[in-house]
């Protein structure tokens, strides 16, 4: 207690003298989206909040365009791709400085990719997405690790990434990967200064428009403009990103005028829309996402395609969107969200049809209706969505029971597939249709256990996927991915519900593009008027 008292008194005194800096014109205060970053290490970061910091502090060879989301030159000024699509030669931008004053060269790129490739340091799931098809990856990360394997020793070099000269890097892929440039835009693909990796308590040493000035875990991250930034001047010189885990408190802070960007939860939307001052600051950005249900394909009743189809046909998707989601989102009838080149607004395999649903149930041996269970975690929106779905499918004689448990218990059961149906909030890692198709592939433990590798349709899907990822961008590639969608929906391998949207309250004093079309706040794109 004595210790506690002393801590308390020290805190009291510190608090007395540390009155916050008054809001300046060039300063912006926002809040983390979910709760707080888990790590400021780019090669370990895996959450939305990690990425919010990384996207503003770091850059990769390639970045995405904030409007079109297409890959654009960042630290690589230009690049060439070999005829067979397996060799990428990147020429680095000249004179780029890290926030510590050192100059970017090819060794920094090599260092960063080696660190991302090594099992102990590259623990972010983005490692596999960025480097998974790069030569040497499978040597570093064995395809399968048996039980009881000792801690993998860090392997320090991935053979597919080579330094050609000071400003040239060559990346060799094991298989041609059309979306490789898009994959490089992931936060795991950013470049940190060689030898700068440490505990990241002060953030990474990167080349982005901002540097981490201070990181108070549990409380806030402060960013300051990186004076050495190569990309030119911008308005916002300092940013405070606060940890406000309770979303309704974020909205109150926004109303009090002390937050410039806040999450706007669906539950608060009716109130926000009625308030003219607030509603004019409401920003909705469609997210490349698909809220869908995964199912156990190995066991009945969810293993029976007729029952899956009956459930899908019985859902009134538009009603769910209009009520629970307050109109934020569009019904999902397939894999791809609007915004992807493979999206087809006319593709509607699941137009609501109660009669057909009943007939399918009768054919499957349930003429008097059926009881199904869908699992979820305690996400408020998802629970409301599922309960609304449950209400709409009752008409077809389906008694859909929503079983919601703590997130880690749901994750456990979903990974083991000890469930019939389970809600999946899938937001795309990068804007390419291949990242939606993975929902059908047995390349994650959960889908292996749910039998995604054992269906009749699987070999064809895998073959098309392998073909699709190597086909150059364009009509042909899109057609392949649309064919996958067709097969998946015929077999109802996932049950799509809606493509969601990001809703934020954005202060009217922020001009420019406070949120990019990926829903990420990129502070150097903000313009502050007079």
């Amino acid at each position, binding site marked *: *207690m004595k210790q*506690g*008292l002393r*801590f*308390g008194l*020290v*805190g*009291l005194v510190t*608090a*007395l003298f*540390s*009155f*916050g800096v008054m809001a300046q014109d060039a300063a912006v205060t926002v809040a983390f989206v979910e*709760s707080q970053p*888990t790590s400021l*290490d780019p090669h*370990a970061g*895996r959450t939305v909040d990690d990425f919010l910091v990384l996207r503003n502090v770091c850059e990769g060879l390639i970045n995405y365009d904030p409007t079109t989301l297409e890959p654009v030159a960042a630290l690589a000024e230009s690049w060439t791709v070999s005829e067979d699509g397996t060799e990428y030669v990147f020429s680095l931008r000249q004179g780029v400085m890290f926030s510590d004053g050192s100059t970017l060269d090819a060794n920094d790129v090599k260092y960063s990719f080696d660190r991302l490739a090594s*099992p102990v340091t590259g*623990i972010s*799931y983005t490692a*596999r997405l960025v480097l998974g098809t790069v030569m040497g990856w499978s040597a570093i*990360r*064995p*395809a*399968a*690790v048996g*039980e*009881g*394997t000792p*801690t993998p020793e860090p392997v320090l070099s991935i053979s597919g990434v080579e330094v050609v000269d000071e400003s040239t890097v060559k990346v060799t892929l094991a298989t041609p990967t059309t979306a490789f440039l898009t994959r490089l835009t992931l936060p795991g693909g950013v470049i940190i200064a060689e030898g700068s990796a440490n*505990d990241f308590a002060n953030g990474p040493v990167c080349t982005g428009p901002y540097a981490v000035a201070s990181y*108070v*875990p*549990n*409380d806030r991250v402060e960013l300051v403009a990186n004076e050495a930034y190569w990309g030119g001047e911008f308005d916002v010189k300092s940013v405070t990103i*606060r940890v*406000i*885990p*309770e979303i309704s*408190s974020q909205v*109150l*802070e926004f*109303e*009090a005028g*002390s937050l410039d960007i806040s999450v706007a939860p669906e539950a608060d939307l009716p109130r926000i829309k009625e308030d003219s001052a607030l509603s004019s600051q409401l920003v909705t950005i469609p997210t490349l996402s698909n809220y869908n249900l995964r199912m156990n394909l190995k066991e009945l009743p969810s293993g029976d395609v007729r029952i899956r189809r009956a459930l899908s046909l019985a859902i009134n998707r538009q009603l769910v969107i209009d009520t629970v989601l307050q109109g934020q989102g569009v019904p999902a009838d397939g894999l791809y969200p609007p915004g992807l080149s493979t999206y087809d607004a006319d593709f509607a395999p699941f137009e609501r049809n109660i009669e057909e649903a009943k007939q399918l149930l009768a054919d499957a041996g349930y003429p008097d209706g059926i009881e199904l269970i869908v699992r979820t975690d305690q996400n408020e929106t998802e629970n409301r969505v599922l309960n609304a779905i449950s209400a709409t499918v009752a008409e077809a004689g389906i008694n859909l029971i929503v079983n919601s448990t*703590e*997130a*880690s*218990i749901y*994750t*456990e059961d979903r*990974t083991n597939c000890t469930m019939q149906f389970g809600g*999946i909030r*899938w937001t795309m890692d990068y804007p390419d249709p291949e990242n939606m198709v993975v929902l059908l592939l047995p*390349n*994650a*433990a*959960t889908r*292996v256990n749910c039998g995604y590798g054992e269906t009749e349709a699987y070999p064809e899907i895998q073959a098309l996927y392998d073909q699709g990822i190597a086909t150059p961008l364009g009509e042909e590639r899109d057609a392949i991915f649309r064919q996958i969608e067709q097969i998946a929906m015929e077999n109802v391998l996932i049950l799509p519900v809606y493509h969601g949207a990001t809703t934020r309250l954005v202060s009217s004093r922020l001009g420019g593009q406070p949120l990019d079309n990926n829903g990420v706040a990129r502070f150097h794109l903000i313009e502050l008027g007079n």
Partner: protein
Amino acid sequence: MSLYIVSRIIQLIPTVLGIYVITFLMMRVLPSDPAKFIEGDRGDAQSLAETRARLRLDDPLSVQFTTFLGGALQGDLGRSFIHNRPVTTMIGESFQPTALLALTATIIAMSIGIPLGIFSAVRRNSVWDFLARLVALIGVSIPVFWLGIQLQILFGVTLKWLDPTGSTKLSHLILPSIAACFGMLAILTRITRSSLLEVLNQDYIRTAHSKGLHSQRVFVRHALQNALLPVVTVWGAAVASLLSGTILVETIFAWPGMGRLLVAAIGQRDYPLVQGIVIAYALVYAGLNLLIDILYPIIDPRIRY
């Protein structure tokens, strides 16, 4: 007395050890795997194996148990699974705000609750007594999250006197400590009132009055001092529960405290962080109880060790 304190401190060892054993086992009994939680929907067999190996979840339970214990004895509580930072650092960072909030709430609760209880007992059955009891009843009944949000709306949004959340200015302490102190204030009022009423009916008070002592002296020396003993007991329990019970307050007001950290850690199956925080709480509780036991003989000379 000093012998007593030493023996109490020695008794701490099996207590904390027992708490560690229970926490360790309970976290492992919970039906979910930290590696699966971290890997989420994207984990394949390989990444799950890598994560399990990295977090040393493949070690036999006995090894996991002794590794943590061995480290803890040397002041190293391991690294958080989720944040990959030393647990001792994380506890250090979050204990100070929690202690500051609990201390402030305690001071407010005591400086209002005890006088209110005394006043209420002295003016028993008056309108003032009724009002004080009503305040106490409301204080016990109001859920803290509701009160917290109402305070934010009133002072933060409508009146704009204070920031709804924050932890950088002294004024940021006001709203959360009001929200946090309410329950304790109510309990202290009720205990002070009932305990004082009981004492005021004792024979020795009548004796004191009848031997002609000034009624003020009777009240302060004879009644109040005796009535304070249960108040101290309750106070200790209330401070302890404040330290752990500010979780909701910390969440609503974005206060970077230990309670919020613990709740998140349990949800994420962050074994080292949960174990570390629970041990820290155990030490604080034990320390507070020791402090109260030391205070007893000072308040009441009949108690001797």
